[in-house]
C-alpha cells in the first residue's frame, strides 16, 4: 500500500446556509471520513485556516497569503493509503467537496528509500 495526499481545493460551504442545511452538509463529510476510517484507509487529515502568509523570493518577502489572485484556497488535507493512484482517485470521488464546486488534488507521497 502506498500513501497519497488529498489536497482539498475550494468548495467552501455557503455561509448563508440554514442550520438544517449546514448539519446535512456536515454529516455528508463526517460520513465520508468515517467510511475512510473504517476501511482503514485514513492515515491523517487536518483542516487549514483560510488566511495565512506567503513568504517568497530571495528577499523573503512576506505578504498576506494565500495568493490574492487565487480564487481557490486549500482548505485542508487528508493522507490516505491506496494500492495505486487510480484507486486513490476513486476513493477521492466520494468526497462531498465536488457538489460545492471544489476539487481534490491527489498526490502520491514519495516513498523514501533508506
Amino acid at each position, binding site marked *: 500500500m502506498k500513501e497519497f495526499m488529498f489536497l482539498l481545493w475550494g468548495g467552501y*460551504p455557503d*455561509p*448563508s*446556509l*440554514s*442550520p*438544517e*442545511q*449546514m*448539519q446535512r*452538509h*456536515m*454529516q455528508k*463529510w*463526517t460520513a*465520508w*471520513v*468515517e467510511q475512510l*476510517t*473504517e476501511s482503514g484507509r*485514513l492515515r*491523517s*487529515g*487536518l*483542516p487549514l485556516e483560510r488566511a495565512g502568509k506567503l513568504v517568497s523570493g530571495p528577499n523573503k518577502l512576506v505578504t498576506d497569503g494565500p495568493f490574492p489572485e487565487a480564487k481557490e484556497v486549500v*482548505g*485542508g488535507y487528508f493522507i490516505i493509503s491506496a494500492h495505486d493512484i487510480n484507486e486513490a482517485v476513486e476513493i477521492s470521488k466520494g468526497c462531498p467537496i465536488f457538489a460545492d464546486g471544489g476539487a481534490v488534488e491527489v498526490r502520491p507521497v514519495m516513498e523514501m528509500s533508506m
Partner: protein
Amino acid sequence: MRDERPDVHSIADHLFRRESGKMVSALTRVFGTHNLVLAEDVVQEALVQALRQWPFAGIPRNPAGWLYQVAKNKAIDIVRREQTLSRLAADPSDVAALSRTAEPLIHELFLGEEIKDDTLRMMFTCCHPALPLESQIALTLKILGGFSSAEIARALLTQEAAIQKRLYRAKQRIREERLEFEVPSGAELSSRLQAVLSVLYLMFNEGYSASFAEHPIRRDVCLEAMRLCKLLTEHPAGSYPSVYALMALMCFHAARFDARLDDSGHLLMLKSQDRSRWDRNLISEGFRYLERSASGGEIDEIHLEAGIAAVHCIAESYEKTDWTGIVHLYDLLLTIKPSPVVALNRAIALAEGQGPTAALAALQHIPDRDVLETYPFYPATLGELHLRVGNLDDAARHLERAIALASSPAEKHFLQQKLNVCRDRRAGRPLEHPTA
C-alpha cells in the same frame, strides 16, 4: 488527527436548527435586543466552525456543548475588543457597565434552566405587538425555529425576498423600539401571552394545511410550534388554561399526521383516514393537556376547538363519532366566535348526526353567508348535501361552482368524482361508489 479508531458519535436530527434558536436567545440576553443580528452572526459562525472541524476531528460526544463553547468564546472575543464594545452598547453610558458584566454573563450562558428562560424571553420578543403579525410568525420561525428565509418562504407559500424584507424590517423595529428582552409579568403577561399563542396557532395551521408530500418542511413547522408551546407550559409564565388548551389542540391534530395522506400523497378526509395510524400516545397527551386546561372558569375558542378535536380522536370511526357532542361544542364556539366558517363546520357535523336536510336548513340560516361565496368548502358542502338528499340539479350546480373555486388538483379531482356520481344518477346510470 487520529491514529486509532475513535468512538464515532452521532448527532440528533435537526440539532443545529434547534440549538441555534437557543443560542441566539441566550446571546441576545447578553448583547441586548438591539444586537440581535450580532447574536445571529455569532451562532452562524459557530455552526460554520463545526462544519469545518468535525469532519476532521469527528463529531464530538456532546455536539450541543461544543457549539455552546465556541459561541461563548466568540462572544468573549467580541466584548474584549474595545471598539466593538462601544458599538454594542445601546448608548455610551452602557459601555463601562457592559465591559464589567458581559464576560461573567457569557461564561454562564447556556446553562440548562437559563436557556429555557432565554428562549421564552425571545418568544415574547418575536411575538411583540409592535411588530406586524406576519413578521411575528416569520421572526419566530427564523430565530427560535432556526429556519432559513428560503425554508420559511416554502412553508408559508410565499417568496423568499418577501420573507427577507419582513425579517429585516422586524429586526429594525426591534432595534428602534428598544424592545425589552423580558418575560412580561403582572397585568401585561396575559395579553402578551395571547399574542404568543396566536402566533403559535397560526404557525401550526400553516404547517398543517397542506400536503406534506410536497412540502415536508411544513410538518417541521407544526412540530416547532408544538415544541415552543410545550416550553411555555413548562414555565410559570405559561401555566394558563389557554396554553394547555392550545397544546391539546396541536396534539390531537398532530396525532393524525401519518394518516392524512394517501399513497399518492393526497390529503385524505377525516372520513377516509385509517384510524389505526393515528398516534395514540399523542392523543393521550392531548387529553392530559385538555384536562389541565379545564381549570379556571373561562373557556375560549381554543378550548372548544380542542374539545372538538378530542371528540374526533376518541371516536372509533367516522360513523361512530359523537356528532351531537360536536354540534353542541360548535354551538358554544359560535357564541364566542360567531363566524360563517364556524357555522359551516357546525352544519357539516349536523349533517352527520341529523342528516342532510337538517344541515341544509342550518346553512340557510347562517348570517353573513355571502362571505362564504368564495370559500370552496361552502359550495362543496352544499353540493354534497343536495346529493345526499337527492336534489341532483342543485347538487350539480354547487359542485361545479366548487370545482371552479377549488385551489388544488387533489380537491378538484375529489369534487369531480362527486359531480360524476351526480350526472350518472341524473342519467339513470348505475352509480359507482364514490371513493372518498
